[in-house]
């Protein structure tokens, strides 16, 4: 294909990316400063004053970031051995296992939320089981608590995390571990000095895929969470759907975005000493 004419191929893609992602998101900055069909007073810092005026919104935002992180972490802890195990299995076993891991993902999330709802309800299967330990009452339930939301988000994150860890682990040849072993590294050392540094980059990239949606979620907390479980996503969705205040919604969205970016950056920094490129020095 002629070099000069090849860029024509990129036009549709770049056009919709620019017009439906780049422009709208940047537009939110302007919107947050009061640009709206109904109240064209510009620039208007009312939305920002409101956000920084009380600690309420900042607290909700922080809580959402924290919730997302927790859910991601729980998912990583459960997913790691699983993803690793699948990468060591035979080709056919891998196909089946990965297929089984992906299948729940294909069912609508809302439906799964309902399934978890039924599961965690009072006198339902989960609580009855837990009641056997005599630590909790079978009639009570963790539904309508923030813990339920966290568990739900972790559950949704699980298939993706397993796939991501599988993909990262695939590259680690068994031979590398064997040579570490022959050099005297015990199980713990092998994990921390070989597996973790090599898996970490892929893991981090994949975690973002899970962390970001979790922080911005609102359906889970709406259905499963309690009065203490309001997430920033709920506030934003509310502003648009019920209250119809796109200006404040824009300000909140931008803060959410900022929060997400900063936390990703922070984690990247914290995790640096564990990365493979540092260890080799």
């Amino acid at each position, binding site marked *: *294909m002629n070099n000069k004419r*090849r*860029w024509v*191929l*990129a036009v*549709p*893609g*770049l056009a*919709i*990316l620019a*017009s*439906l*992602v*780049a422009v*709208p*998101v940047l*537009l*939110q900055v302007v*919107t947050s400063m009061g640009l709206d*069909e109904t109240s064209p007073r510009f620039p208007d810092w009312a939305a920002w004053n409101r956000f920084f005026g009380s600690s309420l919104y900042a607290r909700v935002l922080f809580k959402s970031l924290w919730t997302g992180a927790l859910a991601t972490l729980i998912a990583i802890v459960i997913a790691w*051995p*699983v993803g*690793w195990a*699948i990468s*060591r299995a035979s080709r056919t076993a891998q196909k089946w296992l990965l*297929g*089984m*891991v992906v*299948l*729940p993902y*294909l*069912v*609508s*999330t*809302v*439906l*799964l939320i*309902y*399934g978890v709802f039924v*599961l965690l*309800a009072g006198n*339902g*299967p989960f609580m009855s089981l837990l009641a056997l330990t005599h630590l909790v009452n079978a009639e009570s339930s963790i539904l309508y608590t923030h813990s339920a939301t966290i568990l739900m988000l972790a559950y949704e994150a*699980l*298939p993706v995390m397993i796939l991501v860890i599988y993909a990262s682990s695939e590259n680690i040849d068994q031979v590398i571990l064997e040579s570490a072993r022959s050099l005297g590294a015990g199980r713990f050392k092998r994990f921390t000095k070989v597996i973790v540094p090599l898996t970490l980059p892929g893991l981090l990239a994949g975690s973002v895929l899970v962390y*970001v*949606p979790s922080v*911005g*979620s609102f*359906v889970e907390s*709406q259905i499963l969470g309690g009065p203490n479980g309001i997430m920033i996503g709920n506030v*934003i*969705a509310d502003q*648009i759907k019920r209250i119809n205040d*796109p200006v404040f*919604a*824009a300000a909140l*969205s931008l803060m959410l*975005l900022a929060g*997400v970016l900063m936390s990703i950056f922070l984690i990247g920094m914290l995790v640096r000493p564990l990365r493979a490129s540092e260890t080799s020095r």
Partner: protein
Amino acid sequence: MTRNLRLCVFGALVILYVPLLVVILMSFNESPYGTFPFSFTLKWYDSLLGSNDLLLASWRSVWLSLVVGTLAAIIGTMLAIWRVATSSNLGVATDGLLVATVAVPWLILGIAMLQIFNLLGIGRGTVPSIAGNTVVVLPYVVFVVVARLRGLDENLVDAARSLGATPIKAFYRISLPLALPAIIGGALLAFVICFNNFTIQYFLLPLGVRTLPLEIYSQVRTGYSPAINALATVILGTTVVLAVILERLGAGSRQIRAKGNSWRS
């Protein structure tokens, strides 16, 4: 695999499938509130057939996902072809844009897109929904196709040219067929993501027009009918059957290609 690891895998699968099994179980359960005791019935499947809302919503989801999947596959593949061939700054900027699209929460993208459509006077609608869902799904298609194209042996195109193929012919006869599995995979991925994309559809679809995720959401919140469980079980069953058929087809086509196809290239 060691016993411990096997246990972990089993445990994870149990965790993954329990809510699903609850839904499937409840679709056969007499009680409409999802409580025990359990008594078998098929009445919810009957109710499903009569539930116009659910069936209509499902049909809308399938239709929307097919359109979005196809659009994303075409636009995404075109973008991928261009991206692989270029090393300009625009290419790098595009990478950033694609990553941003994946990294920004759908919530924010949804309301930002709604804002743009409102400002343009279009508001919510079918076309905005198609556009919005396509854009959100595009990066996945592009990443998958680019990865495949980059993984192709570069000598293959040179070999084709040394045998008399112009660059365009070489692309159609060699690169594209080899990239096809990835393109189809990307299209499937796009279909699935769009089918279950609650957030974008929540903000861009016209009020009252509901796709399956929205319908389920509305019913879950306002006393619903367990026909939803029946629907979920049907969807699950269909997906499994389709996957198995695709698997068999994949294995069969490889054999056919080897035997026939002698002189055609």
